[in-house]
């Protein structure tokens, strides 16, 4: 039986997902052991009931992110926080040092044609403070880096598969 792999994308730049793809042809090897059951790469719209390993990119920055990450925790055996955004908040959390309104106003009032406040609807409201993933849920593995290098992904996946110990700092570090 193949194991089930999911990848999720919260508030990040997709660089961590790209670094994952940077394992290049080793992707074919990974696909021999894992089915991708939820990811921006496949078309399933619902997170499956039980997933073996879920990689999470990005920080938590909207009310929907909170809902989503809690649901994912319930349904995943192992959660890997991939990249500095998921682990510390990194770049997205730089907005925490400003008032949320002033962040929204810069983008949507100052830098637009009407220069007035906009009421958003049908899009998830932004949180006042961007949070790292482990502020909301328990995380099993941390893979730091911005993004973590492809080899780190590959080796972590292998360790999980072979139930071996994974020494993260052999492969990556914060800000790498």
């Amino acid at each position: 039986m193949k194991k089930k792999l999911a990848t999720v994308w919260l508030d990040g730049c997709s660089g961590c997902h790209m670094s994952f793809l940077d394992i290049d042809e080793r992707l074919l090897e990974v696909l021999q052991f894992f089915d991708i059951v939820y990811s921006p790469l496949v078309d399933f719209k619902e997170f499956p009931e039980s997933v073996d390993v879920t990689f999470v990119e990005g920080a938590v920055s909207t009310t929907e992110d909170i809902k989503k990450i809690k649901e994912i925790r319930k349904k995943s055996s192992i959660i890997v926080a991939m990249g500095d955004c998921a682990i510390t908040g990194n770049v997205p959390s730089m907005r925490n040092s400003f008032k949320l309104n002033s962040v929204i106003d810069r983008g949507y009032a100052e830098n637009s044609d009407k220069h007035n406040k906009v009421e958003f609807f049908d899009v998830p409201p932004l949180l006042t403070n961007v949070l790292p993933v482990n502020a909301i849920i328990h995380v099993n593995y941390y893979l730091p880096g911005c993004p973590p290098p492809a080899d780190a992904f590959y080796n972590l996946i292998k360790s999980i598969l072979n139930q071996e110990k994974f020494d993260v700092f052999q492969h990556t570090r914060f800000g790498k």
Partner: protein
Amino acid sequence: MKKITIDPVTRIEGHAKISIYLDDSGEVSDARFHVTQYRGFEKLCEGRPFTEMPRLMARTCGICPVSHLIAASKACDEIMGVKVPIAGVNIRKIINYAQILQSHALSFFYLSSPDLLLGMDAPIEERNIVGVLNRKKDFIENGIFLRKFGQMLIEKLGRKRIHPDYIVPGGVESPVEESIKDEINENARLCIDKALYTIDTFRSVLPAFEEEIRYFSHIPTYHMALSKDGKIEYYDGDIYIIDPEGRIELKFKPEEYNNYISERVEGFSYLKSPYLKIKGYPDGIYRVGPLSRLNIAESCGAEVADRELSIYREVAGRISNAAFLNHYARLVEIIFCAEKIIELLNDDATFVTHTKANAGVNFEEGVGVSEAPRGTLIHHYKVDRNGIVQWANLIIATGHNNLAMNKGILQAAKRFVKGDDIKEGFLNRIEAVIRCYDPCLSCSTHAVGKMPMMVEIVNNKGERLKEVRR
């Protein structure tokens, strides 16, 4: 009134959902593309030294960080008032070609080839890269090769594949060793072969997509791109805007963008809608990206790519407004990038050891423009005398296409969605319209929606009467 929601839109680079509104008789009356992420880079850079901008702003996007590094560095070059040494310019160009090549490979092979090779109606379990792999292994292997070539070249020069800190204000950090030449030349030639083979495959399936060509965001719009001497240009040159028939409407210097482009905010999306000031909103709808670049340039300016361009034009005509043909245009551009990489590697100026100009703050404002894989990218900063950033404005490639994406999904929805007969494959077609633009949404909102695919039936007062999940 009925509302269909596709959420999340998959096989695109970012967070989005789509709403389709049906009137009482079941006809599509409106469609909206919602981008659900906002990070506020234009604010969070405030108070940081301008020299940090390239590596900070690169974090807008992990797929095209190099284009951000270049646009940001060019804006900083302006603030310093320096001329970048020729080796620095050449190396920046090579890295950008490498990135456009890898990003196009990602879009074509990893994200869109399932629709193209397996069909829009293929079962959802198979309609992904693994499904294509099972059917046509060599095809996907070529895709992996192309993407890897681009990423490795970025790493060779910039020491890191994603977010290399190597492109900096004034140029690039260090010279490039001539010893890398042979290996890269050889692999770039392989890229050309593989892309040619892919074009053959693509052309063999193209007749099956007549409807998609006609109804996937096939709308008359203006087009915008950098261009120089009638050729494709990603780094220098002027910004050209042509009308839907191909006549030049505007031509201006990148730093004048503000005189010609304005941005509107719609409350249903965190992605703004830029438009041409002289035409107003929303008539000033325009597009950017591979299709627009091939519309604007007379020729590519590289041998094999030009040969392929003329074959492409047998299908597309001299000017095309069919968003679907972006897929084809990407393949032509992959060849163009590989040829340009070879050309620059054979230019001795590339290996000169002086790669960076140094200066402090000499001007309080700078605009930097670069073509990114998805189109024209604009960074604009204002700093104080100490070089501390006070304000920033970014207009990102995907943003320029926002109006066209909205209009495009409405066109496709009207064609493919009728009443209660909502087949999964039809909804996939609506998403596929978006995929033609290869939108990079993390990028464009500098700024997860996760709800299952859901059909809501809402009455005229907006009360929900029924909900169907799939």
